[in-house]
């Protein structure tokens, strides 16, 4: 079956010798949400710019809806809808004028265009603000207008480049439900880039982790997390009403050697360990602690996060990579 998006060995460097993409390859199946996850500066936006024909790759090839992005840019443009990083809203025009012009450049006209514009304004909760100048819109409203504009010509493939960056959490949650509806309800293929681990986890059926212009891991969020060595268990030890009292030094030895438990460590009052199946390991662990008369305040079992996945494949934490990117761009 034909893939909705194919990128094959994309290489792109910028004049000052910055290599943005270093052999990026991935495929996106039709009708799914695919996430490109990576810190700022990993090359995600450059990939989107190439796939949406804004710029060209130095090497490699790519296609969208079976159309070559370099050889058939005009056809790609008709098949794709794009929400770029940062807004593309004309803030001196109203929401309706923005949408109307967007439709016009795709060759739409007359009553069918007006109907489509009205429909989208309604759907994205902009009907009341439709005839106000977009400069006065909130960040969330401008972003919704961006998505509405990307959809005006009913594209089969939708590119969302960091659609929720800079939005407050509530607005982000709204955006998420809208995005997941696009693939589920309307059969669109969605390529989403994000540097929010949580967002990729929530939305993407499959995702690829991008680091320094390459893909370092690929799979469903579950698959990627499963490859890690088990769940994290955190036990907070009770201090018997005397917080300053050091916790019982015997606690680690109490659980060390239990079946399925490893990497036992004590950090302050937190007893840390890993287990293949955290849920099954906890009862035995608590029993062992009780047998050693160690009092427990709380227990937490954490499934591995994409943060852990990122750390494993790139050798640094996501935050460290972000900080590094900020350093480079300065």
């Amino acid at each position, binding site marked *: 079956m034909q893939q909705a998006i194919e990128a094959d060995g994309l290489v792109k460097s*910028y*004049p000052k010798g910055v290599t943005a993409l270093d052999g990026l390859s991935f495929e996106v199946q039709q009708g799914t949400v695919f996430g490109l996850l990576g810190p700022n500066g990993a090359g995600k936006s450059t990939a989107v*710019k190439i796939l*949406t*024909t*804004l*710029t*060209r790759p130095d090497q490699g090839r790519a296609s969208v809806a079976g159309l070559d992005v370099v050889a058939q840019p*005009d056809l790609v*443009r*008709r098949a*794709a809808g*794009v929400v*770029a990083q*940062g*807004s*593309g*809203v*004309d*803030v*001196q*025009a109203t929401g309706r*004028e923005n949408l109307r*012009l*967007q439709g*016009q*450049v*795709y*060759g739409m006209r007359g009553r069918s265009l007006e109907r489509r514009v009205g429909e989208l304004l309604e759907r994205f909760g902009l009907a009341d603000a439709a005839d106000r*100048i977009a400069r006065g819109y909130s960040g969330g409203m401008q972003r919704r207008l961006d998505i509405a*504009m990307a959809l005006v010509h009913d594209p089969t493939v939708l590119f969302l480049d960091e659609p929720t960056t800079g939005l407050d959490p509530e607005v982000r949650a709204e955006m998420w439900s809208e995005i997941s509806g696009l693939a589920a309800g309307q059969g669109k293929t969605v390529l989403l880039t994000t540097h929010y681990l949580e967002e990729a986890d929530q939305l993407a059926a499959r995702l690829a982790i991008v680091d320094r212009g390459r893909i370092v891991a690929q799979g469903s969020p579950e698959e990627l997390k499963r490859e890690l060595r088990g769940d994290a268990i955190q036990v907070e030890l009770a201090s018997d009403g005397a917080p300053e009292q050091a916790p019982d030094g015997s606690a680690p030895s109490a659980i060390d050697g239990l079946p399925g438990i490893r990497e036992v460590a004590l950090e302050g009052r937190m007893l840390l360990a890993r287990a293949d199946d955290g849920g099954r390991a906890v009862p035995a662990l608590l029993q062992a602690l009780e047998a050693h008369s160690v009092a427990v305040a709380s227990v937490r079992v954490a499934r591995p996060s994409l943060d852990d996945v990122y750390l494993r494949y790139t050798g640094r934490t996501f935050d460290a990579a972000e900080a590094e990117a900020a350093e480079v761009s300065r």
Partner: protein
Amino acid sequence: MTLVRQTLYMTVRHLRELSRQPWFVGVTLVQPVIWLLLFGALFKRIVDIPGFHGHSYIAFLAPGVVVMTAMFNSAWSGMALIEDLNRGVTARFLVSPVARQALIAGRLVKEAVVVVIQSLIIVVLALIVGASFPGGPGGVAALFAVSALLGATFGGLSNGFALIMRQEEALIGAVQFIVLPLTFLSSTFLQPNLMPSWIRHVADFNPVNWAVVAGRAATSASPDWGLVASRAGFLALLLALCLAFATRAFQSYQRSV
């Protein structure tokens, strides 16, 4: 046909922007009014220089001020494009099927419309302070036409620079560097027979001078329409070149993103 329609859509966008801040036209008229009233008054006695044809310096100056204003204001056209670049509006259009020519041409048509509005105001003002346009309405219309051509030409140049420089400061520098010298290397302020000969020769290749010469000829008592047509032709050719240059300059921008 598609190209014409797309250009129209873009023109509507830019004119709508202008209609929401009409005071902007007024602000851009401050300079020409100063030229016309103060400069015109200051050099009133120029008509006494032996060899000066005509009796009124204001009447001589008025077509020049119309042309100069057209160039001065259109040369800033690229500033709005830089704002669009910064806001992501241009990138949005570049990934749509809209023709690059339309993205530029829409701006140039808008500049031309603004030029005609401003020119009309300047001409009325000039009539009030005693200038006359013996060529009549037809001549004035021709003056507007060459001014609009010149405005669109400089608008094209400015947009091309904007796409290559992508920085407001750099564009401001380039515009300042170009507009005043071109004005003084033309017959805007003085008749050619009174200029130093080297300036007269440079002026022959100066598009601003083409427009001034054509505009002044068209509004004179006995217009030399051949001269007007030839200068208008040069300007049209240059406009086509500038449009092509600005359209190609998108490639420079796209390489940088």
